């Protein structure tokens, strides 16, 4: 019988430990998440099951030691040339059960460490050591959060090519050997439960000089950090979003990630590489889950006295869904590979990779929304009840399309590169 593992995997791109990783994560989510995920929506304020899952995945299995350099107690996977694929596979597997958890995981351990440790720029050893210790030595899950969006400006902050940080309202001022941070961020993944914030701020309001953009690490327990209640959303309840206010928050000067100019590169890479890799993995994970649920339903329920899947019209929809998953998965795997092999595909800081990453997110998110919606429609009057989980995926995945500047910025970044537009 065909399963989600029958979608084509480009064999040439498989990571060395890919199959093992898949197996470990799938068995964990099948046990810890799948049986309970239907209740997540009502537990959007507080969900103890997620904490227990984090403990198992981050600490017991050791995911939070995964990426770090060996010299700081990590497993150095972040330095391998298959990190993109490995990260993709893990996130896809979690997303199959719950995309909210997958993004919480992706953002929680993904960006900060990977970036600081492995970006080919000035390595901020002192900060790296501090953060790495936080992750590798802790026996509690450590959750990070990248705080970028602000109350106004749409996707201006993410629109680095045009705005160059001009609209950022959160400020960082150097006072002696400390940064003083003031501002208001909202919506980021993990914002309501993070231990560590990476705050996108400006050292000079209104500036369009890339060097004035700063990424500064702010531990959540610093005085002046205040956060709101979790938002109530259409779905994706496992990811807790809220407002964060920084009121004269002081951190040491070396908490700035990389420094003037390089912070902008860091920030872009967070969006273009890790952000996109995550987004498309969540979409594909959700779609594969839709496939497996749908398959069971259409094999059981009948129409004209025969299983739904034997009706040509329904089979037509099933096959459209399948083709979209196959295409999205292949596109996603290609992108993961491009992250793994800059020697083949060029630096992942390049404008080419940025454009292609956005084109990929644009395309995969759109297909994912369609797949979930079409599947729901097949279920008829059972499509809208919690029992089949497809409606959950439908609600959850819309968020992926909307975040990181949404669909429009993907369109602008894609057009800008492929058509040499200058003013978008």
């Amino acid at each position: 019988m065909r399963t989600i593992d029958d979608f084509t995997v480009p064999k040439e791109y498989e990571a060395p430990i890919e199959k093992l990783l898949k197996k470990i994560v799938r068995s964990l989510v099948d046990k810890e998440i799948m049986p309970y995920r239907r209740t997540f929506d009502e537990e959007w304020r507080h969900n103890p099951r997620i904490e227990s899952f984090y403990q198992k995945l981050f600490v017991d299995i050791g995911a939070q030691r995964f990426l770090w350099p060996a010299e700081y107690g990590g497993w150095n996977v972040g330095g391998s040339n298959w990190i993109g694929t490995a990260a993709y596979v893990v996130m896809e597997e979690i997303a199959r059960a719950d995309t909210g958890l997958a993004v919480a995981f992706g953002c929680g351990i993904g960006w900060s460490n990977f970036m600081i440790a492995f970006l080919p720029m000035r390595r901020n050893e002192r900060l790296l050591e501090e953060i790495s210790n936080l992750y590798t030595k802790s026996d509690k899950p450590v959750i990070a959060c990248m705080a970028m969006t602000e109350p106004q400006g749409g996707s201006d902050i993410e629109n680095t090519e045009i705005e160059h940080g001009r609209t950022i309202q959160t400020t960082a001022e150097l006072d002696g050997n400390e940064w003083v941070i003031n501002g208001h961020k909202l919506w980021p993944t993990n914002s309501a439960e993070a231990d560590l914030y990476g705050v996108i701020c400006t050292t000079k309001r209104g500036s369009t000089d890339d060097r004035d953009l700063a990424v500064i690490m702010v531990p959540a327990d610093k005085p002046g950090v205040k956060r709101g209640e979790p938002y109530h959303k259409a779905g994706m309840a496992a990811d807790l979003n809220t407002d964060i206010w920084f009121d004269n928050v002081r951190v040491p000067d070396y908490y700035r990630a990389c420094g003037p100019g390089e912070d902008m590169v860091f920030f872009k890479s967070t969006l273009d590489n890790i952000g996109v890799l995550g987004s498309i993995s969540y979409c594909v994970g959700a779609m594969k889950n839709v496939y497996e649920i749908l398959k069971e339903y259409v094999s059981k329920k009948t129409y004209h006295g025969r299983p739904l899947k034997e009706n040509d019209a329904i089979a037509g929809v099933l096959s459209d869904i399948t083709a979209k998953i196959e295409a999205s998965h292949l596109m996603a795997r290609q992108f993961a590979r491009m992250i793994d092999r800059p020697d083949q595909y060029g630096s992942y800081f390049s404008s080419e990779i940025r454009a292609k990453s956005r084109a990929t997110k644009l395309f995969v998110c759109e297909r994912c929304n369609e797949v979930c919606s079409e599947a729901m429609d097949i279920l008829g009057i059972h499509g809208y009840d919690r029992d089949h989980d497809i409606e959950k995926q439908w609600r959850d995945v819309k968020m992926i399309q909307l975040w990181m500047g949404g669909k429009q910025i993907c369109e602008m970044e894609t057009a800008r590169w492929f058509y040499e537009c200058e003013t978008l």
Partner: protein
Amino acid sequence: MVKKDVFLYPKEWVTEEDETLADSVRDWADKEVMPNRQEFDEDYEDKLVGPAMKKLFVEIGLQKMVWPEKYGGEGLNTPAVSSMLVRVLEEISRADSGIGFIFANTFCSLLPIILEPDINDELCSELAPLFCKSNDIKTVSLILPDFGDPEIRTDDDFYGLTAQVTAELRDDGVILNGRNVRPINSGSTANMFGVISSAGDGDLLYVLVPENTSGIKRGKTFFKTGLNSDKNADLSFDKIKLPKKYVVWKGSDMKVIKEILSWKALCDSALCVGSIMDVYETAKRWGTDRVIHYDQTLKENPLVAAVYADVSKDIVSSRLLTHNLARILAKPEIYGESWNDDVFSTARSISLTVMNASCEAINKAMETMASEGYAREGNIEKHWRDVKSIKNMIGGEIPAKMDVTRYFFECKNI
């Protein structure tokens, strides 16, 4: 607030009385729902929905209106009620589609006994007081054929779909049986059930079942995507027995089912239109207040404006089509009876078009609002969930499509 005719509709077909009623429903919505509508979705203890509904159903009196005058109603029980229905449902759905959905399905369930010229006097005289004299909300839960389940039944009762309930007609009454029965609406709360059941001999029955009939068991109210003002639950009918008078219709020509589905198509479409007109208001406000690129109003960005064009187009068309369907149902002397195949197929066609356009319009409007489109407080995502749920309750897109093709292409087996 959007003027009611920003999106043109054939005003010639809507009477002044219809508009007056629609205006009072709009007032009701603004007062009773809008101020705290975000909480309607999780109003598990019925602190908000019930009281608001009561004002609409009892005080404004919707539940009384559609009954014949001679039985205590207000006599809006002619096909010409359709345009009023559309305007009223538009206004309810603008605030909360779930409440509109309950009213719509109650109306559709009662159609076969109340609608001129085929009034069922026996049942009207018995049931009208319940709806016209009570100070409580009264609703009917509609139970239609569904996909089959090999563990229960898989018979081809209605163009490939399976009646969820079986009926055994005896001299002294009718016995109904069914388990895991999924109603369209109000399984947890309805005062009566309008049930399509199969007699096993090729005939289908439409039976009205009072809630207190012994042998009815209601399951737990389940969580669902949207329409959360409506509390739904699966039912079981364990050999329930009813006097014959409750068998409203019996036959093999599907007449009553098609009548109900044609009118349900109208109601569903009107609910969708109400929703997307509110989405339009919200999106417009957002697009006007939000500034990007330092000094550009969001709606002045051409890419966003292109999305708004798609949203607007969908509303323009959906509203016009819905009002046209109302007219088609209002004038059987021009367009034919609601159960005729041409009207039935046209109704199903229009409702599919309107539902799809509405889902698409909301989906796109959300995409211009970034995360706010996804937050409860943005007041868009609820419509997105509600309208998708309305579409689900059409009973599967493919069977609905077959209803369209069957007439236009003269197919026999689909």
